Every structure is written in structure tokens, then in C-alpha cells.
């Protein structure tokens, strides 16, 4: 919201430098994000009187003007403009001046004739045509164009005569302070901040007799949505542009001037924070206004020319036939103030905030009016605002006010009182403020303090209890004046939980394996399931769908971590990064069949890579080192040929204690292709909770062996499809308790081995706990192993 300093000073005589004002207001809770002053840019532009216009000797389209700029001698200006005549007052950018855009203007020769400056348009002054009545876009700004009274004389600084030398503060009002969405509200805060006097004059106006009841009747059908409705009728309206001072104030607040009546409603809204509306009385059918809910599907054109389709949750202002305004949001085109409007109805009403908010949202129409109503306005404000509008009618001579006010007031306005709790406030804020100091602050904010009881004005709907009072005291006593203290607390155990520690170690293990951590979006595209080759009936396809996503690509909560990983690998591949080794501990969101319940949020460890000569065994090495680092129970790796996302011949599932704890392997070439990754890509997915549960009990020290170990090598021949895991399992079973360790040291296929067969060589370490194994013992074990394997078609390599 813009707050012109000059306007604010009409209510309080604060007079500090803008920078200080801005800082101090920030420290008392009125966030001032910046300030501007047009006159800081515009330099050396004055009012000029065009005394003579002559044709340029060398150019058809140029004229040479003799201009009085308040100096002893006129200056000569060459221009191509057409819309001026002798006797016009125009803004003149003198030699060495600067326009609002920052562009400098200097004297120069135009087709052989010297020009000692330039005439300005509204735009060159940083203004729009609405900011000066009667001005045009393509042409000079004629200051004495008759559309409004202009009092400048030749030589006057344009910034002074057009009020461009005021400082305008940009303030952000917090949502619980609608009273501050007004010049008066901000002025009150400023007055308290600087401990300056504050004064708002009661509006005064005269009426012209008659009786409003003869012209207008109002019915409020839904008093919950419209707690108060006030109206006045003004006749003999003379529509004209507003005077310059009013236009300038609207301009500084960023509001377009339209005509005197509309401008008055906007002026009052800016000043008091109470949105108002003016209806053309001739368009109020039957002289009857009904405040009612719209009928389902009822249509209305709003002032912006758009057709709006209404529903029963929306409140409308209607005449006897049709809606003439969407209550609190925008007026209807059908009852708009026109140049020939003769009689008007001023509306000053209070609408139920949530309803305005809802309507504005549904219509996609946010206005200065709805922005105020939806924060909840004071029902008592309607009266002051209406009076102020009448005062302005009189000041501007814009019409005659008919006697009588319509006021349908169903607002509950109990007077709120809160005990001051002086000592408690001092305790709670840990400050030492006297009761008198507190009283002073609260009274400056418009509260009454009597016998330790604070009476809260109706415009402070945010104040309900002692905590709210404490906040007001804190703000104006100064947050800076509160002593910092560290809280005293009993010694107690903080720290990470076991699961949190597990996750920390897990991250360390993943990074130790050369994987970089990534962070990806939790919402993904529904297309990702097709991309990873998931069948139509896969349970992962049952997802949480966002009702209002940013786009299709981010519309569902992920149920798998793999697509996010592949997405990132693909991006790196496209950036031509030669390799990427990545991990994420990603959350997935498993939909609850009961849609009123929250999904199950599970963490999944997902890692993947391409490049740098990584292959399946690189991946398996990473998997194994992580399982070891996390002290997982002994794991088995079982080939997995039927996961559609993975290569059928290069994928394994990890089992611990017969329970599946994860999957890893080469990404299926078709899936890799879907992600545009050429070459081999590898990935693993291990649910966090499953891995955590598969943690082996902590190891205890076992006495070091007393007896020596014997090593025996075993070279076997088996069919290609036999996995070494199976053989290992068999050897372990056949060897019995003396087998301490088994390791593969060679896998061979080729000339010496028959087609369809391979050779695997194992190194066995045998040891007994209670004796040195003799040649016979060893022989017995080996015979048993070899004999057992032969039964399964696995023979000793000769």
C-alpha cells in the first residue's frame, strides 16, 4: 500500500526524514519496504506559457515557440507537437533538465534553429492521463486545459505545482490489521511510534432536505454475510473531473482518477479503509436494494466488462430485478456512474470477511475493496466513511445530499475490555515499564485505560487478551529494549534417536562409496510410471493426486524414488557430464485406501550411476559395502528377471533372513532409452525402514582362534546358468562347521571348458575350534563337498 507522507501528516505532525520514518515504523510493526519521491529524479522542469507559435523555417512538421518560463526573457523551443496553442501553460524541460525516466534534456539545434528545452507530455513526467484531468496520451500536457483548476504560474517548479515532491512510502500491512489498510490507520501507528499528536476531524456536511425513504428502501436478507448496510442518496449530481489535489492524492496511492463521484469513493477507502460504492440511482430498479445471496448460475457483468457467473455462496447487491454489484468485490456495469448520472446511492457496508474472500477467489477477481473486506472490517467504520463521502460531495459541489441515512445494523459490537495486567506484561516481556508508560502507548493507539481496564476500540478486532496487549506494549516499548537471556532449563537428554543416527551413518556410507547426495521434488509426473515400464495394474500407480498442481509434471506424489533418480541422471547425461554417481534418501508417499487418511510416508535409499567404467559389479560392490557399513544381517543376492525397470539378466534382489530388503541392477535398456540415457545405467532401491530392521545385533568379541587354519582350493565346472551363490550355499551346507571362509578367486569360460559350462574356483579356509585339523579330517570334508556337488551336476575341474 502506498502512503503519501503529506497525506499522513494531515492527521499527525510527524516530521522526520523519510529514512528514519521508514526504519522506526519497521521497528513498531508497520513494515515499510521503501519510499520514492518523483522530485528526486525530475529536475529543472517548470511551467511555461506559450506566447507565440511560428512555423519552423526549414521543416514543415516543426514549429518554433516563444515561451515565458518566468524569466526576464522568453526562451525559444522547437517542437513537433500539435495540441498546443498560444496562451497554453505546459511543462517545460529546460536546458540541463531530467525527465521522470532519468533522461537528460539539453539545448540543441533542430534543423538549424536552436531549441532551449522541450515541452513535456504526461508520460515524460512519469504520469498517466488519469493523473491529470483533460490530458491526452499523444501530445503535450496542457496544464490550463479547463478540465480542472490549475494555479501554477510560468516558472513554477512542476514538481511543486503537481505535488510530485512528496515522499511516498510503500508499506506492507500484516493480515490481522485491516485498520491499517488506510492512511488514518498508518497515521495512528506513526503517531504512536513518534509519540506525536494524532487527530482526525469529524466530517461535516449539510443536507438539502427531502427524505431518503421517498427514494430508496433496503432489505438485507442475509445479515450474517452483511452485518451492516448503510446508504445515502445524493441528487443533482454534476459529474466532472475531480480537483487536482484529489487526483494527485489518488495518483500517489496508485489509484486512477475517473470522475468526482467514483474518486470520492476511492478517496474515502484509501483514507478510512472502508470500501464504498456509488450506484447510478436511475439504474436501481424500483428504488429498492436487496442484499441477498445470488441464485445459482445468475449472471452479471462487473465494471471491468466481464460476465460473471454467480452461485448461492456469493452475496450480491440487487435491485428489484437484477444484481447490481458483487458485494464487497466489484460493482456491476449496469449501475455504473456515467457522465449523465443525475442521482446516486452511496453504499457504505460491512460484509462478512470469509464470504468476500470466497467470492473473490471463485470469481478470480481481487480488488482494493475485496482485499480490505476479506480481512474483516470494523462495522462501525461504515458511518464515518459515509459521512466523509458526504463531506467531500459538499466540498466538491458535486451534488446535494438528501436527508436521512439508511442503516441496517445487525453487527454484534460488544465493547471489548481487557485488564491491563501491568505486572504480568512486565514479566512476560521481561521489561520494566511503568503502568503510565503502558497506558500512554495504549491510549495513543485509540484504547481507553481506566482503573486498570483497557477498553478496546472496535477497529482493533485483533486485540482480545493480555497477550495481545503485551504485543502492543512490546512493539512500542521497542523489541530492541528487551534484554536477551538464554532460557534456564533442567539438564536433560537431547540428541539424536537411534534411527536418526542410523540415517547419519547411512549417508556417510553412501558418500564413502563415491555417491553424491541429490535432492529432488516429491511430486512427479504421472507419466513416470510408463517411463520406468511399470505394468498398468502396478500398485505404485495408486497415487495421491494434487487438486491444484503447478502443472501435469508435478501433479502426483511419488510412490517410487527411481524416476526422480533417472530424471537427474538423464539431466546430467544431457549436460554431457561424463559420469554421475548419485544417491538420495527420498520420501515416497503410499496412498491410504481410505482417502480421508494420510498416506504412509516412507524413506527409500535410492542410488544410481552411469559412466566412469561402472558396471554391475561396481554397483554390487557399493551395495555390499553399504550393507557391511550398516551392519546388516547376512544377505543373499537372488537373480531377478521380472522387474520391468531393470535388465532381466543383470539384476538381483537382496534378502536378509529370507526377507526382501531391496533390488539393484542395470536399468533396463528400454527404460534408459525412455530417459534418453545412452549406455548402461545402474540403480538400486532399498527401503529405509526395511534396512533399518535388518540390522544385525551388535557383534561381540570372539576369542581369536587357537588352532591353525588350512586352505584348500576347489576348482569346479558347472553349467553357465548355475549361479555362484547357489554353489556357495551348497558348499557351506556340505562343509559343516569347520568352513571358516569361502571366497571366489576365479571365474573362467573358454577354450578348456566345454561350451555352455564355466569354471569357478573357490578358496576355502577350514579350521576347527578345538584341534588342529589333520589330513584325514580335511580329506573327509573335501570328499563330502565334492561328492555332494557331483550329485547336483557340479564336478571337479580336472
Amino acid at each position, binding site marked *: 500500500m502506498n502512503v503519501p507522507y503529506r497525506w499522513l501528516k494531515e492527521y499527525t505532525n510527524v516530521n522526520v526524514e523519510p529514512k528514519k520514518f521508514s526504519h522506526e515504523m519497521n521497528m513498531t*510493526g508497520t*513494515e515499510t519496504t521503501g519510499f520514492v519521491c518523483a522530485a528526486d529524479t525530475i529536475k529543472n522542469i517548470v511551467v511555461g506559457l506559450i506566447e507565440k507559435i511560428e512555423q519552423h523555417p526549414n521543416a514543415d512538421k516543426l514549429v518554433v515557440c516563444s515561451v515565458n518560463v518566468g524569466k526576464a526573457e522568453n526562451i525559444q523551443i522547437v517542437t513537433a507537437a500539435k495540441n498546443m496553442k498560444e496562451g497554453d501553460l505546459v511543462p517545460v524541460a529546460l536546458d540541463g533538465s531530467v525527465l521522470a525516466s532519468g533522461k537528460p534534456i539539453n539545448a540543441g539545434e533542430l534543423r538549424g534553429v536552436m531549441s532551449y528545452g522541450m515541452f513535456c507530455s504526461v508520460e515524460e513526467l512519469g504520469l498517466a492521463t488519469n493523473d491529470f484531468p483533460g490530458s491526452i496520451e499523444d501530445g503535450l500536457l496542457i496544464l490550463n486545459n479547463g478540465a480542472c483548476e490549475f494555479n501554477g504560474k510560468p516558472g513554477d517548479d512542476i514538481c511543486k505545482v503537481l505535488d510530485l515532491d512528496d515522499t511516498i512510502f510503500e508499506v506492507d500491512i*500484516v*493480515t*490481522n490489521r485491516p485498520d491499517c489498510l488506510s492512511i488514518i490507520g498508518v497515521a495512528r501507528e506513526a503517531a504512536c511510534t513518534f509519540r506525536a499528536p494524532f487527530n482526525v476531524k469529524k466530517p461535516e456536511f449539510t443536507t438539502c432536505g427531502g427524505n431518503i425513504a421517498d427514494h430508496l428502501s433496503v432489505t438485507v436478507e442475509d445479515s450474517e454475510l452483511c452485518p451492516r448496510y448503510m446508504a445515502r442518496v445524493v441528487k443533482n449530481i454534476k459529474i466532472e473531473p475531480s480537483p487536482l489535489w484529489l487526483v494527485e492524492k489518488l495518483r500517489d496511492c496508485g489509484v486512477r482518477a475517473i470522475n468526482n463521484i467514483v474518486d470520492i469513493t476511492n478517496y474515502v477507502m484509501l483514507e478510512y479503509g472502508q470500501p464504498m460504492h456509488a450506484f447510478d440511482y436511475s439504474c436501481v430498479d424500483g428504488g429498492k436494494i436487496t442484499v441477498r445471496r445470488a441464485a445459482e448460475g445468475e449472471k452479471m457483468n462487473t465494471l471491468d466488462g466481464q460476465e460473471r457467473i454467480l452461485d448461492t455462496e456469493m452475496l450480491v447487491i440487487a435491485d428489484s430485478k437484477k444484481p447490481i454489484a458483487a458485494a464487497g468485490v466489484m460493482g456491476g456495469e449496469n449501475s455504473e456512474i456515467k457522465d449523465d448520472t443525475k442521482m446516486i446511492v452511496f453504499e457504505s457496508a460491512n460484509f462478512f*470477511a*470469509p464470504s468476500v474472500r470466497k467470492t473473490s477467489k471463485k470469481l478470480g477477481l481481487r480488488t482494493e475493496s475485496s482485499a480490505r473486506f*476479506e*480481512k*474483516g472490517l470494523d462495522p462501525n467504520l461504515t458511518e464515518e466513511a459515509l459521512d466523509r463521502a458526504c463531506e467531500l460531495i459538499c466540498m466538491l459541489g458535486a451534488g446535494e445530499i438528501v436527508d436521512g441515512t439508511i442503516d441496517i445494523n445487525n453487527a454484534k459490537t460488544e465493547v471489548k475490555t481487557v485488564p491491563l495486567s501491568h505486572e504480568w506484561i512486565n514479566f*512476560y*516481556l*521481561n521489561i520494566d515499564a511503568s503502568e503510565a508508560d503502558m497506558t500512554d502507548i495504549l491510549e495513543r493507539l485509540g484504547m481507553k485505560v481506566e482503573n486498570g481496564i483497557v477498553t478496546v476500540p472496535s477497529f482493533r478486532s485483533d486485540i482480545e487478551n493480555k*497477550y*495481545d496487549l*503485551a*504485543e502492543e506494549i*512490546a*512493539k512500542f516499548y521497542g*523489541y530492541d529494549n*528487551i*534484554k*536477551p*537471556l538464554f*532460557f534456564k*532449563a533442567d539438564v*536433560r*537428554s*537431547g*540428541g*539424536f*534417536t537411534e534411527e*536418526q543416527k542410523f540415517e547419519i551413518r547411512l*549417508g556417510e556410507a553412501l*558418500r*564413502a562409496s*563415491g555417491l*553424491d*547426495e*541429490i*535432492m529432488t*521434488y*516429491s*511430486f512427479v509426473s504421472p507419466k513416470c510410471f510408463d517411463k520406468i515400464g511399470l505394468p498398468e495394474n502396478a500398485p505404485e500407480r495408486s497415487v*495421491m493426486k*494434487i487438486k491444484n498442481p*503447478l502443472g501435469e509434471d508435478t501433479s502426483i*506424489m511419488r510412490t517410487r524414488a527411481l524416476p526422480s533418480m533417472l530424471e537427474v541422471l538423464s*539431466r*546430467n547425461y544431457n*549436460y554431457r*557430464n561424463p*559420469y554421475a554417481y*548419485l544417491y538420495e534418501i527420498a*520420501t515416497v*508417499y503410499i496412498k491410504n485406501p481410505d*482417502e*480421508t487418511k*494420510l498416506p504412509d*510416508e516412507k524413506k527409500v535409499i535410492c542410488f544410481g550411476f552411469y559412466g566412469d567404467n561402472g558396471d554391475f559389479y561396481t554397483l554390487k560392490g557399493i551395495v555390499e559395502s553399504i550393507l557391511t557399513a550398516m551392519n546388516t544381517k547376512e544377505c543373499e543376492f537372488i537373480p531377478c528377471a521380472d522387474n520391468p525397470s531393470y535388465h532381466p539378466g543383470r539384476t538381483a534382489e537382496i534378502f536378509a533372513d529370507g526377507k526382501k530388503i531391496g533390488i539393484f541392477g542395470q536399468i533396463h535398456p528400454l527404460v534408459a532409452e525412455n530417459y534418453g540415457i545412452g549406455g548402461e545405467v545402474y540403480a538400486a532401491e532399498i527401503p529405509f525402514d526395511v534396512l533399518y530392521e535388518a540390522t544385525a545385533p551388535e557383534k561381540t568379541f570372539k576369542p581369536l582362534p587357537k588352532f591353525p587354519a588350512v586352505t584348500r582350493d576347489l576348482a569346479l565346472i558347472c553349467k553357465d546358468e548355475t549361479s555362484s551363490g547357489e554353489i556357495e550355499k551348497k558348499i557351506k551346507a556340505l562343509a559343516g562347521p569347520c568352513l571358516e571362509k569361502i571366497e571366489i578367486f576365479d571365474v573362467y569360460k573358454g577354450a578348456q571348458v566345454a561350451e555352455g559350462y564355466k569354471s569357478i574356483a573357490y578358496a576355502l579356509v577350514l579350521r576347527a575350534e578345538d584341534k588342529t585339523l589333520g589330513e584325514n579330517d580335511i580329506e573327509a570334508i573335501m570328499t563330502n563337498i565334492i561328492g555332494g556337488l557331483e550329485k547336483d551336476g557340479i564336478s571337479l575341474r580336472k
Partner: protein
Amino acid sequence: MEINIKEQLEQIRANAEKELAEIASSEELEAFRVKVLGKKGELTKVLSQMGKLSAEMRPVIGQVANEVRAYIEEKIKAAKEQIDKLELEKKLSAEKLDVTLPGKARRAGKKHPCSIVLDEVKDAFISMGFTIASGPEVEYDYYNFEALNIPKYHPARDTQDTFYFTDDILLRTQTSSVQVRTMEKVKPPIRVISPGRVYRIDEVDSTHSPIFHQIEGLVVDKGITMSHLKGSLDLIAKKLFGEDIKTRIRPDYFPFTEPSAEISISCFKCGGEGCKFCKGEGWIEIGGAGMVNPKVLELLNIDTEEYSGFAFGMGLERLVLRRYNIDDIRMLFENDVRFLESL
């Protein structure tokens, strides 16, 4: 004859001295030792003539021979030490490496910058006796809004444009939801932080992301005052940003705290004098805070006459971007390996 042998011995000694001076390697030295002192060496050859000597001369010449042998052995030993030293120097110098060449081992992976900073934050709080709580990201409206004194159609909802699944289930817009869940489960004293993802409808650009992280903190105990809020924020800022950092709070509004405050810290680039980095203000906003609104405590059956508390929240990404001088928040979610490995 006697004289002759003696002369020969002296000759050997003199020659040895000369030859030794020219020996530069341990192989040469060994060859020299064998040539002079070996079984078939010069000395032995001379001594083999001893039989021809008279009985009284033998001990005399023997004496001389031993002296010569001892002398040469001594010289060889000294020469060996010298040569070994030189050879070692030569070897070491030949083995010299360019230590500035890159190391060979596969580098360890990197933490995501958000994790780096978040872990520091967690450590700082853990050291102050806090625990870490988490809550669901897909959350009930109740925990995210209603219980935090933000009823439906409250204007504060405007500032947090929300993704919805149903009318009641949404993506949390603030980690403050975990405050409520914590107070439901744990009785005071409470000292907890809850970092996590939050979601708001924001078109993606260099400063906006629909997903970001917040770190929420909550302290509820007997006799907690606004001073404690200020002091704790001070301490936390110092732990996170350094001892010289100053903290400033100024009024703000959050429906679930009263009084509420915006937290700023003195700019860590210019120390508070105002620079390009802090837009000339000398201060950088890092989050919001306040005394827990008694309405929230009451809703959770915490006796407000006995207990009070404060809460604070910070955006993680903002800290990360500032810390690493990253000018585009999208970098954090893009996960370009070159970016990840550079930090």
C-alpha cells in the same frame, strides 16, 4: 726382503688411499674391498711372502700388516657411509613426485549443500539439549492451519498458497504443523526442532521453489519470556553464523505466536554496515519467531498459567544460497554433478 714387504705394505696403503678417493658407488667400493682385503687380495698376496721372513722380523712386519689392514678397513667404512648417504639422496631425488598432481583414489561423494547446512543446524541444536522431531509432509488442514489459529478463510492463508489433495488434506506449508503434533504427544518441558520440506504454490524462478525446507523450533517450559526468545535466537545465530553475528527482531504477525517477530541477523558479508549483499540494509532476514500463542497451547491442553513458550522458523534454502553465494535456487534441485562436486 723385510724392507721390501714393508714397502709393499706401505705402497698398498698409499694406493688404497688414492683409489678410495675416486670411488663413488657402493659396487665399486665392494670391488675395491675384495681387490685389496679379499682372500685373493693384494694384502693377502703380500702377506703370503711372510714365510720368507726371519723369525724376529715376522712380528714386526705382522704388526705393520695389521695396521695397514685396520687402516684400510677404517677408510672403507668411512667411504661406505659417505657413499650410502649420497646414494640415498640420489634415490630420493630420483623418486621425487609432482605432489600437486591429483590423487588417485576414487573421491568420496558429497553431501548436498542443503544437507551440509541442515546438519550444522541440527548439531547446534542437539548441543543445546534439543531433540529432532519430524511430521508428515502430506498433512491434515487441522495441523497445518486450524490448530495454529488459522481457521478456514483466514487471510493469513493468502500468504501461503496451498496444494490440496482433498478439502482436508494438503501439502504442509510450514513445519509449524510439527509443533502441534509434538505438543499433542509430549508434555512440557519441550525443546525440539523439526526440519523438513514444505510446499507452496509458487512458479519456479531464480528465487522461488514450490518445495523448500524450513527449520522449526519450539521451547515450552515454566516461566519462558520474550527475553528468552531473544536470547535464544541470539545464541542460535552465533552458533550458526559466528560469534560476531548480531540478531535483531522486529514486530511481525503470525497467527500462532503473540507477540510475533521477524528475525534478522547482521549481514555476514559487511558486518552490518550495508553492502550489495544485504541490499544496503546491514541486516538479513532469516525467519520468523514469537511467543507461542496461548490459544495454541490451550487447544493442546497445556496450562497457560503455568507454561509459556516460544517458537521460531527459518528457511533453509535462503541460508544455503547465501552461504555458498548461489544466485539461483533452481541449482539446488537440478543436481548437476558439476555443481554438487564443487561445494
